[in-house]
């Protein structure tokens, strides 16, 4: 699949944003965050800002961005529509939580309730994002049971890294909890991605797309067109195996291992600089991971072209 920048940025940024909102909501619910609204509101603004940037980016690849609102209508059947609805509905408890924080209700019952609702909706939004891809039976590397856990774990990990970095900037903030969570979820992402790659690397028997397999090997003789068409530009993207292997290592080293080490250093006393340095590492690594998620995905239509 063609790794379009706008969609990769969308899933990475909005994953981090909703992941950060998830942890902020949970920590607000258990009172593990500074009570001041001067912490809560900017923290929520960063989380929602990341999500909004991702959502806006996703509209850039639309042919008619001005009609994007129509995408909210078909939530009964479409995961993309559900994702749009969930993404927007999540803003409601997040904004209520911001108001509650300003009003001094965090920690408190109001903060607990809205925090939990915001966390739940943020998680559901990431579930919807993952299901857009995981529900497509046409793309073997996406129609995998591990795709949904990988999306959730990536969001939880990147959200925890962002939350830890933000807390460390605040004098009364204690980033130890999100830093610990980031370490735990960093390892989880590492394990899930390795398992996912091992799974998609398994040799598979390609389906008999033409139904001509009954005669023996089917070999393309004359292509239907001599130039690349929409199908080949969108679905015919090929990444060299050697490059993919290298990029996988980069994704895990820069995206997971390095941030985990920085978290450990921060917990050992290095503090804010290590936590802040972990953010760009995590974003670059996850961006590469998401690029590979697209680039390594092979669409079944390619079989008609013998690719």
């Amino acid at each position, binding site marked *: 699949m063609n790794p379009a920048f706008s969609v990769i940025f969308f899933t990475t940024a909005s994953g981090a944003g909703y992941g950060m909102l998830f942890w902020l909501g949970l920590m607000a619910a258990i009172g593990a965050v500074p009570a001041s609204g001067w912490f809560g509101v900017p923290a929520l603004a960063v989380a929602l800002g990341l999500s909004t940037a991702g959502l806006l980016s996703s509209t850039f690849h*639309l042919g008619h961005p001005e009609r994007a609102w129509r995408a909210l209508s078909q939530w009964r059947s479409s995961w993309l529509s559900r994702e749009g609805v969930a993404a927007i509905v999540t803003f409601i408890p997040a904004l209520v939580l911001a108001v509650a924080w300003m009003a001094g209700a965090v920690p408190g019952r109001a903060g607990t309730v809205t925090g939990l609702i915001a966390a739940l909706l943020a998680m559901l939004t990431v579930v919807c994002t993952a299901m857009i891809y995981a529900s497509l039976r*046409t793309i073997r590397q996406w129609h995998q049971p591990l795709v949904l856990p990988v999306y959730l774990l990536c969001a939880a990990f990147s959200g925890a890294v962002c939350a830890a970095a933000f807390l460390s900037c605040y004098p009364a903030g204690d980033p130890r909890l999100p830093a610990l969570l980031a370490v735990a979820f960093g390892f989880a992402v590492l394990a899930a991605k390795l398992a996912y790659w091992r799974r998609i690397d398994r040799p598979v028997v390609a389906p*008999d797309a033409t139904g001509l397999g009954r*005669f023996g090997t089917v070999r393309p003789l004359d292509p239907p067109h001599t130039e690349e068409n929409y199908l080949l530009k969108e679905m015919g993207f090929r990444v060299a195996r050697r490059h993919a292997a290298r990029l996988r290592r980069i994704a895990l080293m820069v995206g997971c291992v390095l941030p985990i080490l920085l978290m450990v250093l921060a917990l050992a006393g290095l503090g804010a600089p290590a936590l802040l340095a972990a953010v760009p590492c995590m974003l670059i690594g996850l961006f590469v991971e998401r690029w590979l998620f697209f680039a390594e995905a092979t669409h079944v239509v390619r079989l008609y072209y013998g690719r």
Partner: protein
Amino acid sequence: MTSLPVASPGQKKLGLVIDLDTCVGCHACAVNCKEWNAGGVSAPLTDRNPYQDAPDGVWFNRIHSYEAGTGTASRTVHFPRSCLHCETPACVTVCPTGASYKRAEDGIVLVDPDRCIGCKLCSWACPYGAREYDVQEGVMKKCTLCVDRIYNEALPEADRVPACVSTCPAHARHFGDLGDPDSDVSKLVAEREGYALMPELGYAPVNRYLPPRPRAEPPAPPAPSGPPDIAGALLRWVDRVLSR
């Protein structure tokens, strides 16, 4: 609505039956489809750089040619590929806007260009490559089964078939109701053991492909003769020269 209509018993299922035995790979179906639909409900079917390097355009039919089998047992099969108007099309259910829909009355899968936001997800969901994005218009386009021909009372009745069917010089394309077991197309499918493409994916395509017929036994190689017949060969040569 992108939810699928509930299929009633005896549901009308309009579709195509494509005969891979007689298709000669002339691309006339693709050309006539383009010609008709460039002025039909899906108009325009934009072409980019049509007279320059790397031309690219929206087409609803693509004709592949394959070699099936190896060695002397191999055969060339021309393979027209277009929308199969599936009974449970994922291209419809993934659509977030309701632009893609399946008609309850005849099963045709269509796109409403005024609602399409051009997110391209439907083309990802289709395993058959039936949907092509029109970059210039910013919307997805696909085969309409010539919905503006088959019900068009301004046309003579014989012409109320999809453009690809009407133009096929080899009569390799047939149009009809595959939901009716007594229709000509259904009988043809039954007789020739027509098959669906990749049914294992679960989208229940309506269109059927008729497999190439088994080949006649190849003629037996000439029996090895005895000593070379020089006089006969000379006479045959003389005969060939004189009859020029």
